[in-house]
């Protein structure tokens, strides 16, 4: 807390002698908009229905548009996903649209020693295409890579995959969903043959027991909390598995504060108790599953006593969770990155699926299983071919039949379709080895979001050519050769699929600023200049969506029955939706059949192994990373919004009081990959053997300079959620750098006022309103 200045002796009293106590006097106007320019003009205001650009809940909202066609505000919208509720990110999202930091002209430089200069679109596009041709001619097509993102509309993610395979003809395409929920995707495919959550959010209201594993719902999916509370209002019990006592864990019936990286050991033991106490649903298992015997044999080796030791939780708690979950009439499990961001992420998810299947809690109202996708289009972004191993409609690029179908739709010869590529982190290693020499990045910021920053920086620096698409200059784009200024979500239309696999439509609320183009336009222009213009004749999102519908028809991820008109009428349709009179499929497996050919749940044996970064005397603690409510992913958007910066200006290290630090003291967090100094947020709400750092900030305040780039062998997700670390007292706190901007600009100062505040927030959710400077 900052002391105000009482009249210090010797200083003259100001003519205005007014004082006011803390928290009563500071009004920071939203986004730095001066009060007298606050828009309260109601004449000619229109409300454009759309959804939030941020997380996988996809709350409905209206954007307020003034007479001149400019977005100037937000109004809650009674969409049935969120019922008018919004989180602080959603409320402030609109301020991105006409933000002074927006890029409005292509930026270019020949090498990284030069400053960026603004160039024409033609010059930027021609230079990019020339570099693509040069690198591919010299080193082969696969020497050029493409990285997409899961905050793009599904149409654009489809284009990313198609552009890589058809225009660039490279195998190296992947996307930042690889850093998000691919472990759940892998587990879903293995167990169910379909990659999505099994139940809609509304089923949560019907359940009797809700298990949330590794998800800080209150901060990462705030609006989803209403479903948790709604279930509890109706008598459901709540179990939260999380190393930290988060806002939902604080009041949960059971909070299992497990040691990071031990999830599958815990869930195996829970299943052990379920089996031992005869709480399994043997009839369901016999009728609907395969592999139960093997699973049962494995969990027999995981008695609670053993797992209690591994997980650092009381043995009794394991028994309690087993009885509560298996004893409930209808139980439901949801998980998120906490169990997925591990070198055993797929196994962790499978161990939860095993628990649900063994208790017969699959595919019923109020009973089921799901993953909560982190990015706005985390679900839709992984479905239509921007993953290294997938083609549109969730088809496998290694399946000859799938390849043939897609080649037919795209009108190319099968030999022209490249084979499967590698994952995002592996591509960075290939950049270091100069196997990939050129890269286009669209809608991602790996300098903040990938683990082990030193490796990432080295990989990108080794690239001979690097172009990024973005609307704000991200830390990654600031290191590129070419930056294309593209639209924000409110300047184009398109669809996204939320965590329920409900496809929702975002509408265009305003025209892009002069000089800004849609991602679709840029991709199609590049394709045209690469000689594939006939395959990329898309004037707008709608035309891409029409091709996407056809490309997904007949697959598991069937979008054929979804049209823009239907989405506008209904407010969202859950795929699979094979025909235009099909109502969509909000709940899966209702007929007891999965999407495997045999219709069974394929239960998988899960063995726990320790995290990849070994503990030692030097590194005795677990470092875990995650999000805070005011910021989103790499922070390129939220670190520019005044209200969010004011709420949470900087990262911190959350430590237990037993380490002897006091709030705000500089603490150095050291891992085998690096060390950084954060202010301590001392709280009893974290395990003594664990420290937490939120990851939204760039170096020198980047959690991902510390994390390990170990991958899950199946999903290739990095192990963000646990690495070995130690903490020590330090001298000085590392300051948060200003977000990068185009040359000649500075980050809008009014939004950055609090950024250099060296203190940690009052609580992980941010600074209290009275603690703001």
């Amino acid at each position, binding site marked *: 807390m900052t002391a105000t200045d009482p009249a210090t002796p010797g200083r003259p009293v100001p003519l205005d*002698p007014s004082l006011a106590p803390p928290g*009563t006097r500071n009004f920071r106007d939203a986004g730095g908009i001066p009060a007298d320019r606050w828009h*309260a003009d109601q*004449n000619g205001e229109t409300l454009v229905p759309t959804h939030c650009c941020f997380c996988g809940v996809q709350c409905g909202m209206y954007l307020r548009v003034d007479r001149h066609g400019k977005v100037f505000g937000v109004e809650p919208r009674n969409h049935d996903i969120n019922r008018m509720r919004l989180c602080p990110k959603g409320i402030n999202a609109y301020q991105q649209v006409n933000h002074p930091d927006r890029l409005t002209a292509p930026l270019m430089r020949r090498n990284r020693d030069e400053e960026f200069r603004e160039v024409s679109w033609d010059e930027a596009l021609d230079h990019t295409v020339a570099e693509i041709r040069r690198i591919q001619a010299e080193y082969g097509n696969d020497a050029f890579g493409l990285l997409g993102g899961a905050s793009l509309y599904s149409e654009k993610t489809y284009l990313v995959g198609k552009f890589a395979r058809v225009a660039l003809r490279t195998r190296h395409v992947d996307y930042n969903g690889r850093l998000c929920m691919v472990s759940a995707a892998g587990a879903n495919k293995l167990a169910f043959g379909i990659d999505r959550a099994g139940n809609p959010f509304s089923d949560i209201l019907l359940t009797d027991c809700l298990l949330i594993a590794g998800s800080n719902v209150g901060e990462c999916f705030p609006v989803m909390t209403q479903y948790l509370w709604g279930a509890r209002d109706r008598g459901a019990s709540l179990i939260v598995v999380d190393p930290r006592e988060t806002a939902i864990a604080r009041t949960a019936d059971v909070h299992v504060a497990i040691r990071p990286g031990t999830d599958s050991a815990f869930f195996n033991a829970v299943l052990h108790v379920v089996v031992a106490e005869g709480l399994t649903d043997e009839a369901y298992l016999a009728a609907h599953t395969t592999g139960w015997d093997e699973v049962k044999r494995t969990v027999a080796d995981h008695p609670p006593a053993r797992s209690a030791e591994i997980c650092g939780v009381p043995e009794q708690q394991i028994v309690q969770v087993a009885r509560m979950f298996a004893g409930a009439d209808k139980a439901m499990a949801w998980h998120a990155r906490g169990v997925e961001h591990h070198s055993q992420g797929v196994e962790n998810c499978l161990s939860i699926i095993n628990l649900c299947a063994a208790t017969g809690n699959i595919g019923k109202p109020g009973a089921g299983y799901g993953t909560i996708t982190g990015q706005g289009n985390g679900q839709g972004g992984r479905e239509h071919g921007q993953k290294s191993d997938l083609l549109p409609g969730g088809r496998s690029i290694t399946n000859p039949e799938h390849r043939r179908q897609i080649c037919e739709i795209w009108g190319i010869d099968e030999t022209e379709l490249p084979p499967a590529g590698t994952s995002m982190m592996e591509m960075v290693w290939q950049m270091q080895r100069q196997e990939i020499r050129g890269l286009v990045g669209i809608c991602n910021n790996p300098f903040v979001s990938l683990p082990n920053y030193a490796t990432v920086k080295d990989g990108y620096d080794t690239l001979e050519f690097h172009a990024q698409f973005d609307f704000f200059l991200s830390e990654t784009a600031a290191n590129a050769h070419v930056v294309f200024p593209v639209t924000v979500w409110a300047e184009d239309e398109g669809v996204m699929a939320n965590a329920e696999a409900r496809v929702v439509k975002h509408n265009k609320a305003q025209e892009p600023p002069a000089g800004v183009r849609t991602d679709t336009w840029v991709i199609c222009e590049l394709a045209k200049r690469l000689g594939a213009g006939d395959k990329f004749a898309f004037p707008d999102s709608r035309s891409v969506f029409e091709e996407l519908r056809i490309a997904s028809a007949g697959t598991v991820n069937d979008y054929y029955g979804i049209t823009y008109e239907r989405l506008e009428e209904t407010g969202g349709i859950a795929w699979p939706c094979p025909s235009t009179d099909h109502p969509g499929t909000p709940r899966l497996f209702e007929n007891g059949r999965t999407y495997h050919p045999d219709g069974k749940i394929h239960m998988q044996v899960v063995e726990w192994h320790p995290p990849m970064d070994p503990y030692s005397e030097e590194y005795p603690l677990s470092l875990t990373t995650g999000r805070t409510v005011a910021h989103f992913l790499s922070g390129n958007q939220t670190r520019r919004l005044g209200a969010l910066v004011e709420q949470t200006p900087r990262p911190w290290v959350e430590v237990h009081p037993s380490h002897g630090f006091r709030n705000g003291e500089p603490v150095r967090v050291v891992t085998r990959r690096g060390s950084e100094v954060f202010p301590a947020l001392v709280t009893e709400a974290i395990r003594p053997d664990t420290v937490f750092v939120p990851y939204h900030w760039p170096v020198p305040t980047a959690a991902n300079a510390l994390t390990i780039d170990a991958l899950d062998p199946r999903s290739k997700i990095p192990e963000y959620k646990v690495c070995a670390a130690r903490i020590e007292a330090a001298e000085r706190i590392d300051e948060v750098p200003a977000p990068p901007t185009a040359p000649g600009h500075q980050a809008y100062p009014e939004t950055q006022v609090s950024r250099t505040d060296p203190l940690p927030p009052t609580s992980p959710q941010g600074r209290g309103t009275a603690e703001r400077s």
Partner: protein
Amino acid sequence: MRLYRDRVTEPPQTAEPTPVPGPAPGPAPGPAAADGTTPQTPAAVRRRAALTGAAVSALLILAIVLGSRLLRDFDSALLPYAVATVFLAFGVAYRYTVWISAPGARRLFRQGWRSFFSAANFRTAPTALPKMIATYLGFQKFLGARSHARWAAHQLIFWGCLLAAAITFPLTWGWFTFTSDSGSGPGYEMRIWGFKIIGFDALNAVGWLMFHGLDIAAVLVIAGASYFLWRRMKDRGAITGQRFAYDLVPLIALIVISVTGLLLTFSSIFLHGGGYEFLAILHMVTVVFTLIYIPFGKFFHIVQRPAAVGMQLFKYTARRKDDDEILTCRRCHEPIDTAPYVENLQGTMRDLDLGFDTWTEYCPRCKRVLRGTAYLDHVKKGFN
């Protein structure tokens, strides 16, 4: 749907004693006991206010009679205006008395004047008060912090009205006279209370300004009031909260006065007096209405605003003494305000029988945190 303007009452309606009675019917104030002073019943306050009003009105009448040299200089055509100013004087005095009879205002009123008459203050900081008056009352810097546009518009109205009042009030009271030796100019002299102040030529710049001062004032007021009126028609925040009588009538009145005033000039110069009589009557009616309205509506802030200077001076005086005059929160030790100010507030709260006056020694944040802690400890900690 409830419309805000239907819901507003003024002032707080309650069975309890309220600080101040409004012009609207309602219970008048009555602090049950005010440290040492005699208890005031609403009736007593009203009686005193009426007496004060009558006295001030009588004084004004006396001043008019004497200032117009026993009505020799009094222009009988302006009689309605003069009568209206007498009513204005009564109203302002009445409302003022009632206002400062309420505990909050009374205590601040006393403290403000005590600081004003403080010899020490005058000795050590002679410029403080004039500077405050210039900043708060003249240039109204605080309005700029609210909105630059509103500040500019308010300045236009403020200086316009001040100019108009400075010209018209003495004229209606017969204190100013303009006489010409020749009977019809162009050489004029201006007299106050019969004493010659300046002589000027009606045809030169000074003369033009003298004769067109009111037109200049009207232009300023029209510009400012039109901005406010326009804003009140388009600003969503302003629209929902505004009440016709309180927010719109004053603006309309100002505009009508100014426009009719300008039209009078226009009529005499260009129309050879066409429509003059009708305009004159309309002008007079609006002016009289506005003068009588001043004590009872939005314009009363003109009378109240100097209290801001009193309040500033009170806090300023306390802070000049030494550092210890700042009271800090008992829990977090952050400054709250000057100690005499907090003591004054505690007195006010005791006058009003608000039994939590010691709570003022905690800052608002600590009040909330302590309440939150108490809720967690004694009511419920978690979800249920």
